[in-house]
């Protein structure tokens, strides 16, 4: 649907009723390494889609070092405080609409000032 201007948007949409699959990531706030939380597998799929996780391992609900490494790299790329944790500012960024092109290709990122970063699996 195309709207020519703001006033043509139906009133219902002023409710900010955005529902997308990524909104569910918000409930993962505070998760940390070592935990097994329902929903982390979807987050791993998100990171895999955008190039932060490579390889063919199963996306489990374990908060493992693969996920932590992906979060670290994501935080660097998006100028967030690098904590390796699912803090609120990181999750706010993750759920934003975005381009479908990956940020990293073959585990290499040239974002963040051209610094080469690698997400590795152990």
């Amino acid at each position: 649907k195309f709207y020519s201007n703001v006033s043509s948007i139906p009133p219902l949409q002023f409710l900010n009723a955005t529902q997308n699959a990524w909104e569910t990531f918000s409930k993962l706030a505070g998760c940390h390494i070592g935990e097994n939380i329902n929903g982390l597998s979807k987050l791993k799929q998100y990171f895999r889609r955008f190039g932060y996780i490579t390889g063919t391992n199963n996306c489990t609900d374990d908060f493992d070092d693969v996920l932590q490494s992906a979060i670290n790299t994501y935080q660097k790329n998006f100028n967030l405080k690098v904590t390796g944790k699912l803090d609120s500012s990181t999750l706010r960024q993750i759920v934003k609409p975005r381009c479908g092109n990956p940020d990293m290709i073959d585990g290499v990122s040239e974002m963040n000032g051209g610094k080469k970063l690698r997400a590795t699996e152990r």
Partner: protein
Amino acid sequence: YSFFPGKPRWPKRKRDLTYAYVPQNNLTDEVKRVFARAFTRWAEVTPLNFTRSESLLGADIVIGFFSGEHGDGEPFDGAMGTLAHASSPPTGMLHLDGDEDWLISDGEISRRVLPVTSVVDLESVAVHEIGHLLGLGHSSVEDAIMFPAISGGDRKVELAKDDIEGIQHLYGGNPNGDGGVSKPSRENESTGGAGD
């Protein structure tokens, strides 16, 4: 700014690029004007020219709106989430998510934040995806067009210094204008520049 691996770009003989719309979308002239404006923003700072073609046959760039799975292995995910994707040169595919509510803004406004988060500014996304079509990857500079994310309702259509430096590294500046930065800043010109 960043580039795709191998730094692909349109070859030097291809400075005049044509683009066409998938006919099944039946886009209005108003929508087509949005893309024309988006192409102009990149043309102003490079030696590239963009011309609309009525035919898909032979067009360098093909633009289309699609929903869900659409044959390239990168299905769209409904409203919000991923908004669009584009290929690196010289493939020329620009796909936008047909399930979004797209806002066709006034071309006069360059920056805006709306309280409506469920609509996406079409020109903002178009300018970003054209950056990919020309060879730019994502940038960590939040003000840059090539930053990967945009909030619903936001409008960001003006190229930032980072975008201009990146694209001019690949193609050089616009010989007919002062289109911003004109000298590659990250690497020696002999390794980048506008050569083939």
